[in-house]
């Protein structure tokens, strides 16, 4: 289902209206209006303390909101928590397991709680453990697993469950690079199987790999929500275009480029131009056309997009990484 179709039916996988959560004197969430469409991967990006985990804990009914409402698949998380829990699953930021149980028995317990077909259950568990490279550790107790293994087991629970709404809270923290890629691919696969997915993270690479849309949370407030390209486009002068010319750039061309928007600098040698523009895909064809008309030969063009960290900096005034 496309975003617009979901809106037409007024059906969101997740919808919060003026959702607030207060711990003592601290506002963890402030009047949050947030939606996730069915079938999409929504990445919630924010530094530690931005309210990501509080939002997820509220959606999975562990936390009761201080005010406002939250619905999962149209079901109110406060009024009908049990039904919400039937359709969603969460992989916690800190792995939660029975310390003296083996990974397979933890997964069996989880699968049985969510009515996974007993006939298929064992195969599904075995395959998931193999996919996430947990099979070798099948005889270890949970308390003897490494941080990365425990984290992968946390993800495995949701992969076995295949809920309508799957929530992952920093799914690859403590996981090595190879493991990260595996987890990301399994999350994408889960979406293909029909799950709506929310991923909370402060890792830019993770967000870029997974997100259909990104929500930036900061100080318990929703700062902005959109697809990554649109967020990047929203930064004025966000794209960097480096153009190499075979000869020094003629002054006439520089005058002409000024009319195309953006700002640019020319190298001391005069044959390298660096432009900061809003949309490189619009600016580059017009620049090449102007250059051709004035007989300036282009040797190289390099386009650099702003990172999500730049996006975060643009909208919050603070760096994502610096805040961690």
């Amino acid at each position, binding site marked *: 289902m496309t975003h617009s179709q979901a809106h037409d039916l007024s059906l969101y996988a997740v919808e919060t209206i003026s959702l607030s959560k207060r711990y003592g004197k601290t506002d963890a969430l402030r009047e949050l209006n947030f939606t996730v469409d069915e079938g999409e991967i929504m990445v919630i990006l924010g530094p530690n303390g931005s309210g990501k985990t509080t939002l997820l*804990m509220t959606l999975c009914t*562990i936390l009761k909101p201080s005010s406002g409402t939250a619905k999962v698949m149209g079901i109110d998380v406060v009024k009908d928590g049990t039904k919400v829990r039937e359709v969603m699953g969460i992989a916690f930021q800190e792995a939660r397991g029975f*310390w003296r149980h083996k990974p397979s028995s933890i997964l069996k317990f989880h699968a049985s*709680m969510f009515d996974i077909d007993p006939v298929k259950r064992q195969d599904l568990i075995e395959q998931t453990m193999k996919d996430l490279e947990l099979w070798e550790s099948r005889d270890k107790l949970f308390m003897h697993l490494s941080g990365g293994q425990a984290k992968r087991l946390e993800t495995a629970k949701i992969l076995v469950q295949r809920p309508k709404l799957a929530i992952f809270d920093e799914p690859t923290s403590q996981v090595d690079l190879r493991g990260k890629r595996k987890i990301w691919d399994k999350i994408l696969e889960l979406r293909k199987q029909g799950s709506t997915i929310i991923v909370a993270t402060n890792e830019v690479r993770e967000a870029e790999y997974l997100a259909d849309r990104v929500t930036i949370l900061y100080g318990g407030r929703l700062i902005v929500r959109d697809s990554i390209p649109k967020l990047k486009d929203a930064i004025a002068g966000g794209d960097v275009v480096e153009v190499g010319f075979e000869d020094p750039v003629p002054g006439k061309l520089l005058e002409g480029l000024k009319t195309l928007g953006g700002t640019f600098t020319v190298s001391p040698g005069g044959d390298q131009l660096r432009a900061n523009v809003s949309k490189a895909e619009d600016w580059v064809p017009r620049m090449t056309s102007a250059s051709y008309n004035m007989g300036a030969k282009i040797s190289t063009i390099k386009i650099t997009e702003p990172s999500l960290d730049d996006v975060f900096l643009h909208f919050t005034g603070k760096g994502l990484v610096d805040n961690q």
Partner: protein
Amino acid sequence: MSEFSRLVHIARTDFSYFFRTKWLMAILISLNVSDMLVTGLVYKGLVGFDYFRFLVPGIVVMGLFSAATDTGRRIWLALREGVVQYYMTLPVRTSGLVAAYIISGGLGGIVYSGLLLIIAFVAIPPQGILNAILLLPFLFILATGIAGLAAFFASISRVGEIYWVYAQALQVSLVTISTIFYPASTISQYLPAPIVTIAEYNPLSLAAGALRDSAFGGSALSTGVVSNLLMVSLPLAGIGALAYWIILRTIRVRGKP
């Protein structure tokens, strides 16, 4: 799977933890038993068959107490390790989780005291064995209450050591001021009358008394004894259930116990 099946499954999983720390329980009970034997030797003349008949029901009840309070230790760990929060994401109502913990805590108490009873069966007449079996459901209710209290203390203990302080306080209140190991007549020689009354109506005292009279003494199991035990155990179980409920509610509001 129905919600009832789910809560039974949770109770079973939680209860299975009990067997995964069986050596800890064995140590606790052996410590208690050795204490009792030393006490028996100090009060010379107590170590005889009569004292054995008096002591063994006390040890059985002590086992029930130790096992039920071990629930608190397990819940302290489960709260800190996030297992309780994990349970809260499962499709079971809060009341179902409370019931699961109640069942698990009660089972822990009853299994240990039941094992001790089986050992003691060699010295119990056949009618006594039947009476002991009939008493088990009432002991179960008592165990759920103690487990609930222990769980409550676990929830308000920020560090493990503090939990043991509460557990010891509970032990002093319920075990020391009781007729588990000493008859009321002995207590009355050293302590004021109100304490003796408290000791006599202490639920653990009533449980030990019921075992002494009906299982080891061979008397018929009287409804009076059973109803007294029930009267003091049920409120305790209610308090235990309320304690569990408060823990879960606190997590929902504050995000932590």
